[in-house]
């Protein structure tokens, strides 16, 4: 009978093997995208396809940056994404907590309504939403990109499900001690929600940063465009004229903040609740 330690080591090796195998399959397109950002214009569509560029052209990044006002696009993207992410973390956790733990009339029915709205495909909502924006006078402004994004059914759903999993014993103990709902939420629930905050934060950031279709319809002037809109300005009507090497370089640069955020966010994936502090 193998010892505890060596069993764990075998399990670890097996884990490594599986992870490396799967990881290799999973990461190939991502690698190709990064390598392509260094290629020459003609190398991207060659046949047979090449993985490694003949020469690493770092100038692609510089050329892409200079071709369009990316500094403006970056600024707009940052403002929209940061506002939306913080806003969503706030409203979704409040809402999620309300749905998970607080009782009020119609709670479950309203929640089902939330779920229901997630099931309507966006193209159908787009024109009525456009008309609402026009009535509010927000067309061509960043406000139109920020405000609808401050709330999310998906995010609320995620928060609710996660909070359902938090042991009620903690809350009960606090309530007995006479804690108000706000204190309960802010001082007890929120710290326990670090992993889901990190998850929602990453997804919201990524979703808003990469959001294309809604800004496409809303924004008409170049000074208000976000990064994805700027990226697509490289595309010419004829595929042959499109500077793919610049598009690849710009895309990789755009993806970078997300990777950074993801790596930072990993810190918050901490193992959960230590119950030792709470006695019966």
């Amino acid at each position, binding site marked *: 009978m193998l010892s505890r330690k060596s069993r764990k080591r075998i*399990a*670890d090796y097996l*884990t490594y093997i599986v*992870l490396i195998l799967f*990881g290799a399959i*999973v990461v*190939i*397109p*991502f690698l190709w*995208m990064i390598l*392509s950002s260094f290629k020459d214009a003609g190398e991207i569509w060659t046949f047979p396809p090449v993985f490694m560029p003949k020469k690493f052209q770092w100038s692609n990044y510089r050329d892409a940056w200079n071709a369009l006002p990316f500094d403006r696009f970056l600024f707009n993207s940052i403002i929209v994404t940061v506002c939306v992410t913080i806003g969503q973390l*706030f*409203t*979704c956790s*409040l*809402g999620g907590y*309300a749905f998970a*733990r*607080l009782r*009020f009339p119609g709670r479950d029915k*309203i929640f*089902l309504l939330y779920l229901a709205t997630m*099931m*309507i*495909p966006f*193209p*159908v*909502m*787009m*024109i*009525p*939403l456009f*008309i*609402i924006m026009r009535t509010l006078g927000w067309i061509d402004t960043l406000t139109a990109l920020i*405000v609808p994004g*401050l*709330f999310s059914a*998906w995010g609320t759903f995620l928060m609710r499900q*996660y909070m*359902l*999993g*938090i*042991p*009620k014993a903690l809350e009960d103990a606090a309530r007995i001690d006479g804690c108000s*709902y706000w204190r309960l939420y802010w001082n007890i629930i929120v710290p326990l929600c670090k*992993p889901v905050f*990190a*998850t929602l934060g990453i*997804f919201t950031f*990524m979703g808003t940063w990469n959001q294309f279709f809604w800004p496409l319809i809303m924004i008409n002037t170049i000074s208000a465009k976000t990064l994805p809109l700027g990226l697509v300005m490289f595309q010419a009507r004829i595929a042959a004229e499109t500077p793919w090497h610049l598009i*690849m370089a710009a895309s990789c640069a755009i*993806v970078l903040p*997300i*990777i950074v955020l*993801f*790596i930072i966010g990993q810190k918050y994936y901490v*193992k*959960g609740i*230590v*119950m030792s502090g709470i006695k019966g």
Partner: protein
Amino acid sequence: MKIKIHRPKYFQKEEIAGLCFLSPNLIGFLIFSFLPITASIFLTFTEWNLATSPRFVGFENYVNIIDDELFWKYLWNTFYYAIGTIPATVMLSFFLAYLLNRKIHGIVFFRTLFFSPSITLLVAIAIVWSWLYNADFGLFNFILGTLGIDGPRWLQSTTWAMPAIIIMGIWKGTGYSMLIFLAGLQNIPEQYYEAADIDGANWWQKITHVTIPLISSTTFFVLVTTMIGAIQGFDQFYIMTRGGPAGETTTLVYYIFQNAFEWFKMGYAATIALMLFAIILVVTLFQWRFANKWVYDEGGS
């Protein structure tokens, strides 16, 4: 002994708190989700070509759907895709999340690796996967060739195009769900595992009796959102195959998009969307009812 709690007519503190907590969320929901959706429901009773005012046509759109062979064909395609991707994605992402939850070196590296499909540009994904699926020099047919099998035409074959996109869909969707499962796994207190160890449980028993029940609310989330995502899939079909060949990879959302923005039949598009919504709602309600049985709610609702 059951103590009857007397609830006064005015709202209790908890109910007020609940509504307050929910209010910022709810206001946004009402204006930016509920309102457009009700407008869309209006549209289903009209014919609107985006140029002139909507024309009231009663239930004509609904009647037309029944006769529309494309609607039913695309409904089938949508289900085909959903059934192909959902179980596989959920199981695979749970499996990976479980592995990535262990204490091994380089965990951040591996997690980033598995998250990379979600942050890769769709254009790049489409290019690389088109190569993989190429009947001539693609990797898949090459591997099949070494096994002595004549690989199919994949994206240019009416039978194999959808399975091809399903495989790609699983590959792409796993990263998201994996991350959510990871968050849920973090939520399980160590104490439960330690208690199981004391009871002499092996790793399989630990998974089935501790892990799976305790992340059941997360699993419900992953199931519902993967389902909604699969049924609403559009981008991958548009970019990989344009809904072809011969309409075999067109899903309902693609059809909605075509009706609304290419053929200027907004009323009909809204009707299809409503049908789609009804179907998803029924499935979700079913899952919800069913979930009350297997989702382990720590607090009890």
